[in-house]
């Protein structure tokens, strides 16, 4: 069985973000710490768990982006991926999800993956698109926001639980091959093992240049980028803890909440 896991490298949520002088995009300065998208960690772990459960499974990690993305692909190897593919796209600008999806779909198209996993969304843009777009391009069935999956015995179908919202889940059965987008909480991503860290150090990534036709397709564009209005309506409640507690209770009482 072959599983492809799509991973994205995102800025850490604590990193400061600055708009560039032309106000076209953000500056990639050295204060941004990059790491693997949280939801993709769960996706990768789920693939590795399948390999551990049934054996004879290869797990490929793939990512689209500039050279810094190779660090996240190395991390994928450390976390148990067998191979890592880097589709190199050096542009520092808004990248439409359809472009990322088409690049990955082009790679996956004739490689007969049984399952493709993506995280349910990327933390930096919350678009929730790349997974379902890849599925549509490759004409694969897709289920989103999976919190549990079970392969049936022959490996011809997969039963998945999709999270709808607020504690409601839907059970769905999909044929294989198919694509699942993975939600957090499905498993506990492991720390890299020493042997995988050593292997990742030596192992080469597979590098592919992004297809220029795919890059130049029409897609939505950024017309402006700005910082949110500082609403700063926030009042800091000051003083000793006792005083803060008293002030809060007074405010709540005044608003007829308490």
């Amino acid at each position, binding site marked *: 069985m072959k599983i492809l896991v799509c991973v994205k490298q995102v800025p850490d949520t604590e990193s400061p973000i600055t708009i560039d002088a032309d106000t076209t995009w953000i500056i990639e300065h050295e204060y941004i710490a990059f790491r693997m998208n949280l939801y993709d960690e769960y996706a990768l772990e789920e693939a590795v768990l399948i390999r551990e459960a049934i054996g004879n499974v290869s797990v490929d990690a793939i990512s689209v982006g500039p050279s810094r993305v190779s660090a996240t692909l190395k991390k994928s190897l450390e976390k148990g991926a067998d191979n890592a593919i880097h589709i190199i796209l050096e542009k520092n600008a808004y990248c439409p999800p359809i472009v990322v999806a088409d690049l990955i779909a082009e790679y996956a198209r004739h490689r007969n993956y049984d399952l493709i996993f993506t995280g349910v969304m990327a933390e930096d843009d*919350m678009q929730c698109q790349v997974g379902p777009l890849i599925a549509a391009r490759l004409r694969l069935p897709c289920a989103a926001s999976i919190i549990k999956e079970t392969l049936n015995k022959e490996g011809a179908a997969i039963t998945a639980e999709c999270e709808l919202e607020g504690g409601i889940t839907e059970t769905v059965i999909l044929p294989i091959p198919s694509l699942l987008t993975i939600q*957090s909480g499905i498993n506990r991503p492991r720390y890299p093992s020493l042997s995988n860290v050593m292997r990742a150090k030596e192992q080469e990534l597979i590098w592919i240049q992004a297809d220029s036709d795919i890059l130049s397709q029409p897609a939505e564009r950024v017309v402006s980028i700005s910082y949110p209005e500082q609403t700063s309506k926030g009042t800091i409640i000051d003083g000793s803890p006792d005083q803060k507690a008293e002030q809060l209770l007074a405010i709540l009482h005044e608003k007829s909440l*308490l």
Partner: protein
Amino acid sequence: MKTILVIIDTITNKPQVSGFELISFAEKLAENDYAQIKVIISGENTREAAEKAALYGHDVIGLEHDDFRYPNPELVANEITGLIDEFHPVYVCLQHTMRGCQTAARVSVTAGFGCITAVESCRLTDKMPALKKSMFNGKINVDLQPDAMQSIVTVLPGAFTVPDIISSQRIPGTIQVRKTTGISAYKPLGIRESAEENVRLEESDVIVSAGRGIGTRENLELVRSVARLFPDSAVGASRTICDLKWLPFAHQVGVTGKTVSPKLYLACGISGAQQHIAGMKGSQMIVAINKDPQAAIFSISDYIIVEDLTTFLPLLIRKYDEMNK
């Protein structure tokens, strides 16, 4: 005349009320172009949901299929592709839920439309609307424009309000129910609600919510105790708390949980990740307690308390008891 499609799905024939927020969004888009809006509702039996939707003043088409008893994003996508051929809409609007995004993506590819997601507001220009979304955990706003005259759009729940049908007098729209015969490889077998007692997040006046900053599972008891001070309250949670299995997902507030707008949202130890803020920023009053003075939640809070929850919450409860002796 131009057409805008609004897509609302149902769970066992009941629409999520927040789905009707899309109508407000579509009406905003329609302002420039005098477009007509068609509301599309999918379900096993759509008559009741369609009648409710028609009250908002636009024509409704109910799509019926056995496989629509439970949400079926792939089948909805197939049906929308047919409706696009029929109506040639300029915009197709869906909610930015995980399944709404899945449907949007599939339609985007099959119909050849672009897709803009998680829209929070729109600005009409003489050419095309500029659709605003947040990126990088709310640190920047981006205005996007479609590359063509048509686009799929997903709208963040809570960004628009359900139209007020009482004060704005609207003539109910017509209803057309259609039985559809589509097939999709996605087969919903059933749904399961959590066995949790009724959490009532959306109806509560006050939500006291726990985030990673509460530290330990045991400290949830402090959050529950604070919630009990209020006559009509519920305990909420960030996704992290639910992923840790400290509280069931029925308590989750956020873009993949519930969107709430209570009179008071008391955020305890919540850092303010974009996915969480999206679910509660419409709250009437937001009080945040966090020991990190730079927590992102403070930027949307009405009142800011920089304190350690484990000492402050018991103090708050003690003070309340003293004041009420």
